[in-house]
């Protein structure tokens, strides 16, 4: 009993950091509608800056001053990010901004590596709070008690600021109707900047305040990212008490989980999230989102037409050129192109549901990695032929997508995105922790193609056949009645339902089809590498897909493919340099600012302006 209570206290103390960081994310999303992927990076910077300050400022006063100053410093960094990176692209299509924040993650990673080095830093203990207190006979660190006391204070001050002050009223008004607030004479730009300052500051405080319990390392940013998204979703988007309740729930369950069911640690919070969303669709304290809020922002998409003779000729020419590559005899070029085609198919499948369906999936890697693992598991455990494993892989991924899609399809918008993320993480942690079956962290190796395909050039043509075939199939379906029904469901659910289209069923089928195609890409991948590791199922892999789809142009048919090819090529060049993340991050942000319609979309416009392509009517 006393142990249970002590564990409860540990959980409450852990909740402090989670709440601080998550409430910042929630505020930023609520007001600006930006899904800030770089929030974990702000948290990491808070820890590093706090650490450095604590080396300089002595004593108890110095410790707490360092925490506060770290928060302010990170807040100011947030302001810089908002002004330089996000402000130029507020008018871009919805969620486009998350690409820019991804660029920020990369930059901050390299800046942190450059400034603080690659070693993990052990956080200093808080002066005056180093000891323990015995509560019901169990030792409880004094610092934990301090954290337990501080968090409700922060919650209360935030709540007071939001509900009682003028700034708070503006923030809440902006959450509900930005346009109206602008019309009433409020300078939105500065309101957004202010909210970014506050949000980033909370993340920085969270990073600094956990130093005595954790420390600072370069993996903090991604490690906390999933957790804070989960907290925000469980609590309800934009609800501070919700974020607190969810942070406590997750932290306490986590403490118990570690003690009693250690295998559950990675999955636990996602299971909790899935259960909460099944019962309370908008989180514990969230309200239903106003319909249309997540509709298409900015210019509507142009009508699509199948490629004309000129377009087909160009594609045929490109395929012909690709087919010539093995003749050059360069192994490197063939392997690079194989990677590009595989990744392009993955991106095209994500683009299919994201662009045409308007369904933002944050967990598409589950089907890519899923396909790869299905093939690898068949080969490893059943000794299946490569051919059979290859054919079954897309079906395995599709089966997963059918089940996960069925569960996620009940929600829309950000909640849908978060559910897909949760299930992807669930699959990842399953693979990661089930050592004896999936090989865990060591992955599955020795998954080679059949003898007749075992050769770089042969496999290259094999990849071309299925990879490009898959991309063309996705493209064709976009022009088919099914693709039109999918776009109709996205454009106006109301009209589609009122003319006999079962929109959820159409979207569910599209989600499963996209899953199958991602699985095909995964199967191509695993046999080209000969191995597969849990990294192929990670959030980072899902994000890679999102980034290239947006970068290529979400409102254009070929956006995914072009984005994937460009990023893969650029990465190949940049990774040869030491600080490649920094350069890639800067490059992404530059592209995002210069080409807010994505690469293909912007090229289209440029072409129109130069009179090269048929001009569509202007508004």
């Amino acid at each position: 009993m006393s142990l249970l209570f002590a564990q409860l206290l540990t959980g409450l103390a852990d909740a402090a950091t989670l709440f601080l960081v998550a409430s910042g994310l929630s505020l930023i999303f609520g007001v600006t509608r930006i899904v800030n992927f770089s929030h974990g990076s702000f948290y990491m910077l808070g820890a590093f800056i706090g650490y450095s300050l604590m080396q300089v400022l002595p004593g108890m006063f110095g410790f707490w001053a360092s925490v506060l100053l770290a928060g302010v410093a990170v807040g100011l960094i947030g302001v810089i990010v908002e002004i330089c990176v996000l402000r130029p692209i507020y008018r871009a299509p919805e969620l486009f901004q998350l690409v820019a924040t991804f660029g920020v993650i990369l930059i901050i990673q390299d800046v942190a590596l450059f400034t603080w080095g690659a070693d993990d830093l052990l956080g200093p203990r808080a002066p005056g709070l180093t000891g323990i207190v015995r509560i019901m006979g169990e030792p409880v660190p004094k610092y934990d008690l301090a954290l337990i006391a501080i968090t409700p204070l922060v919650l209360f001050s935030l709540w007071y600021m939001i509900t009682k002050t003028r700034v708070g009223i503006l923030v809440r008004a902006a959450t509900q109707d930005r346009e109206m607030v602008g019309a009433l004479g409020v300078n939105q730009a500065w309101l957004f900047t202010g909210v970014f300052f506050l949000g980033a500051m909370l993340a920085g405080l969270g990073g600094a305040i956990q130093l005595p319990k954790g420390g600072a390392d370069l993996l903090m940013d991604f490690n906390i990212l999933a957790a804070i998204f989960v907290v925000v979703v469980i609590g309800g988007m934009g609800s501070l008490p919700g974020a607190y309740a969810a942070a406590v729930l997750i932290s306490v369950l986590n403490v118990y989980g570690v003690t009693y069911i250690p295998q559950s640690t990675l999955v636990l919070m996602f299971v909790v999230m899935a259960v909460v969303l099944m019962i309370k669709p908008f989180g514990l304290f969230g309200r239903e989102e106003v319909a249309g809020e997540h509709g298409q922002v900015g210019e509507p998409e142009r009508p699509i037409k199948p490629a004309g003779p000129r377009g087909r000729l160009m594609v045929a020419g490109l395929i012909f050129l690709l087919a010539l590559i093995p003749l050059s005899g360069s192994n490197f070029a063939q392997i690079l192109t194989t990677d590009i085609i595989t990744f392009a198919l993955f991106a095209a499948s994500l683009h299919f549901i994201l662009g045409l369906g308007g369904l933002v999936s944050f967990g598409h890697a589950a089907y890519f990695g899923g396909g790869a693992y299905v093939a690898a598991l068949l080969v490893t455990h059943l000794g299946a032929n490569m051919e059979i494993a290859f054919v079954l892989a897309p079906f395995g991924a599709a089966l997963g997508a059918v089940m996960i899609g069925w569960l996620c399809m009940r929600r829309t918008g950000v909640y849908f995105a978060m559910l897909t993320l949760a299930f992807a993480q669930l699959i990842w942690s399953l693979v990661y922790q089930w050592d004896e079956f999936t090989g865990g962290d060591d992955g599955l190796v020795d998954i080679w193609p059949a003898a007749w395909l075992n050769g770089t050039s042969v496999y290259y043509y094999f990849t071309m056949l299925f990879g490009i075939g898959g991309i063309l199939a996705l493209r064709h379906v976009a022009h088919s009645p099914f693709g039109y029904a999918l776009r109709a469901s996205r454009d106006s659910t109301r009209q589609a339902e009122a003319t006999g289209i079962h929109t959820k069923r159409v979207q569910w089928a599209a989600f499963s089809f996209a899953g199958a195609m991602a699985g095909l890409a995964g199967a191509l991948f695993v046999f080209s590498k000969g191995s597969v590791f849990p990294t192929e199922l990670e959030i980072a892999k899902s994000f890679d897909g999102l980034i290239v789809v947006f970068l290529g142009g979400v409102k254009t048919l070929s956006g995914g493919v072009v984005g994937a090819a460009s990023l893969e090529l650029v990465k190949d060049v940049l990774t040869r340099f030491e600080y490649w993340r920094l350069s890639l991050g800067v490059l992404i942000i530059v592209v995002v600012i210069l080409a807010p319609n994505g690469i293909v979309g912007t090229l289209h416009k440029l072409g129109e302006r130069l009179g090269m392509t048929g001009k569509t009517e202007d508004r």
Partner: protein
Amino acid sequence: MSVVLRVDDLSKSFGGVQAVKDVSFSIEQGELLAMIGPNGAGKTTCFNMLMGQLKPTGGEVFFKGENLTGRQPRDIWRMGIGRTFQVTAAYSSMTVVENVQMALISHHRRIFSFLPFAHKLYKEEAMSLLDLVGMSDQAERHCAILAYGDLKRLELSIALCHKPSLLLMDEPTAGMAPTERFKLMQLTSDIVRDQNISVLFTEHDMDVVFTHSHRVMVLNRGELIADGSVDEIRNDARVQEIYLGGGNLYQKAKAAKHD
């Protein structure tokens, strides 16, 4: 004439608010029935219940003898009822003709077809529907850049896709210029007459109502307070009381013209 739609004691309450209370009426084949009433009278709530967007808290709706209460909008559409919205809803990423083709594809149950090119399917049928509402010259235009009145006409042609025997139009002329209103309603009544379709529509413009409808129902605070011919309604004391605006102006204007 035969009854197309019969509504029995339809009711809807939102929490404590009784939005629609025991409304009963029926529509006959080929009839143009107007539903009028001040804002908040429950007209749109009625419509949403007839089309399945809302579940009634009481009462039943029969279409050609078949109970449609509580069915999904898409199922009700399949039974042969078309609808247009108060706020237009078209597929903004498609061309005008593709919008119509989409509805035709759905009507012919080809949604889950993956092989043919959608833009080639039922093109002629779609063009003749557009021709009917005078939109064929704009068929290839991008839907997002259409003028508001044209969108309304496009919606009408979409609603006619599956040859409905009943058309529900929620404020078909809202937000249109006066001359446009008359054109659209004239077009509607012509089509209705030619194809023997029944129409139930809501409208705030009494000129439109009195010129084009065969029968008028008046809704106030969720209750049906009058149901009769145009002349009956116009001379109904209660209706005049509630409609102190529209009806009186119409009469004054008419009197002024006669002077």
